[in-house]
């Protein structure tokens, strides 16, 4: 299964100027998790809104490559950013509501709703009012509603915002379990979430793809461009203002700084293995 995004362009008028939010965006997606990374205004939300049909595009197409499906949107599961729920619904009610929205009518609707909740570990809370749910439970319910109707494409927009570490781990595990036979697009600011689950990372800026590849590929691209130095505490601010510092760790009197750049910041700087965060810092500066 391949989902082909071809030449997608979208522009807005801001004042008298026309601004491109997406410019000739082309990407072919196969099963697995795709991490969408980019600073604010990179075009992630515009792309997601176009794929989900929330807004239109100026040009381009989105279609499955085999052309067998007669409706792309009917194969889509979507969890929007900052989603919340109707407090008077139970989890099961809510899933059945989404089934109604998706016109999904299995033989036993109740049993299907329970099976969906089971996949995100909410079966025991199926008859509980959502008003009594914790943030993590709501987030899992958000995933559950996205997988209703067994869509081939899942899109999660900032799904882990506000979650504690335990819930974020749980979220990542659920996403990984879903990704085997689906295309999953994960847009987030939290790089570690993508680092753990994404098979492919798409770096976006200014409405364009800057770089695409596996984490290993992206990291190897900037191999030899990530440095570690030890610095006195009074010089830390100076480094931070002049260079791209991806991390600063204090051991009391001194700091160990992780600096991303084409050239070593000091003669005694030690080249280290890049991470995905370093990749982001390298391409986007501060996200």
């Amino acid at each position, binding site marked *: 299964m391949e989902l082909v995004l071809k030449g997608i362009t979208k522009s807005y008028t801001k004042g008298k100027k026309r601004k491109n939010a997406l410019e000739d965006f082309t990407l072919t997606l196969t099963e697995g998790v795709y991490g969408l990374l980019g600073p604010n205004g990179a075009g992630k939300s515009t792309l997601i809104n176009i794929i989900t049909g929330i807004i239109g595009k100026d040009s381009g197409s989105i*279609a499955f490559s085999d052309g067998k499906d*007669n409706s792309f949107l009917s194969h889509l599961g979507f969890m929007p*950013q900052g*989603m919340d*729920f109707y407090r008077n619904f139970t989890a099961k009610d809510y899933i059945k509501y989404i089934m*109604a929205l998706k016109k999904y009518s299995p033989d036993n609707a109740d049993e299907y709703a329970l099976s969906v909740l089971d996949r995100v570990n909410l079966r025991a809370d199926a008859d509980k009012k959502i008003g009594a749910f914790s943030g993590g439970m709501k987030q899992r319910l958000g995933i559950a509603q996205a997988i209703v109707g067994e869509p081939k494409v899942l899109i999660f927009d900032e799904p882990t915002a506000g979650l504690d570490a335990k819930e974020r781990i749980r979220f990542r595990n659920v996403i990984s379990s879903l990704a085997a036979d689906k295309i999953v697009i994960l847009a987030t600011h939290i790089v570690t979430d993508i680092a753990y689950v994404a098979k492919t990372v798409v770096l976006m800026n200014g409405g364009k793809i800057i770089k695409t590849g596996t984490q290993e590929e992206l990291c190897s691209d900037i191999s030899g461009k990530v440095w570690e130095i030890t610095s006195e505490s009074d010089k830390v601010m100076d480094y931070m203002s002049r260079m791209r510092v991806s991390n600063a760790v204090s051991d009391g009197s001194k700091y160990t700084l992780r600096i991303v750049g084409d050239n070593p910041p000091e003669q005694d700087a030690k080249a280290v293995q890049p991470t995905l965060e370093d990749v982001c810092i390298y391409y986007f500066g501060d996200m």
Partner: protein
Amino acid sequence: MARLFFYEIKKNVLRLPVLLLFAALMLVNLYKHSETVQYYGDGSYLPDGLMYNIYGDYKGEITDEKIRQISAYKSEMEAIINSPDFVIPDNPDDRYYTGFAYGDNNMAENVINEMKYAREYINNIILLREKAQTAIAFYEGKNDYKVREAQQIELLYGNRHIDVYGSYGAYSLYLDYEFSTFISMIMVLFVFAPAFSKQKAIGDDKIIRSCGKAKSVFIAKHLCMYTFCAVVTLIMTLADILSFGSRYGLEFIGQPIYALHSFTFAPLDISVFTAVLIAALMRFLLTVFIGEIVLLISSTQKNVGISYAISFCTIGAIIFLHGSLPSDFSPFSMICMSNFMTEAKFVNVLGFPVLNIVFLPILTLLLCVAVNLVCRAVSCPRRTVRIAKKSKGGAV
């Protein structure tokens, strides 16, 4: 669509605060009923009321025999209370309907007045038709509109008569009772101000649009609003009628509307039942009109609190403007049947006189359609609809 409709009911209506507010307002309405009855009547048609026994003997078809009997009884009571020996007794006397001669005198006078009204009703109508004929003759060749208007009056007020004496207090109070419609409006505001706003605030609108169901949900939401207005209007109508009926009785609902004194010159020759039905339908339409406005405001707001505030102010402005607008052009006039049924009021539509009871509901309906279309444009952007349709071809 049926499932979406059910979930719209669940989202908007089946909420504890909604049910609690409705219960509380129903209690306030019951209190208001007793206040209204105390203001307009005295509950004398109740089994322990002053009119109860005498009414029981004389209600129904008005016959010469009944008129003779009640007139004789009235003369008898008059003779007693005008007698120089008459003293006001301390205790009720079983010989009298009310226990007292002067009470019976007053009650008999009530019955006679009602019978007189019924018997002499035709004279009022003859007079009115004569005036219409005079107007036709006067305006002939001078003012076509006035001629048409007078012709309409002549047509509307033909062949009328009242044959029955009955208690119509319950219907009279209901037809001019406004408070329950205010309650319906408050409920519509409370229930539907968050309808679209909440959807946006929690991101549900994005899921709906990603499913290509913005239009279906829009329709389901409106169907939910219409159903809610219908159910609330029905409950309010039944509560009002039954409550007032418990004080005055609910007989003679098939009698003509002009049997009620306040509707002597009602332009429509309809039964009390039909008038009650029309009143309920007009209140329903008014509530729907308010509902359409509330939904439109809700569709433009993401913040539920702001949606409430704007809706509240807008409804307040509509009520306030009602005083300044010509009543035939203000949907708010539909709250009360007196605005339509006390006399024939016409609106000049392209030179043709149209009764305001016909004109205003049509105008309100058109306003509802206009507001609905604007709301649709706001909540279902054309582009989204196009994407949903186009997607059937495989490529978006």
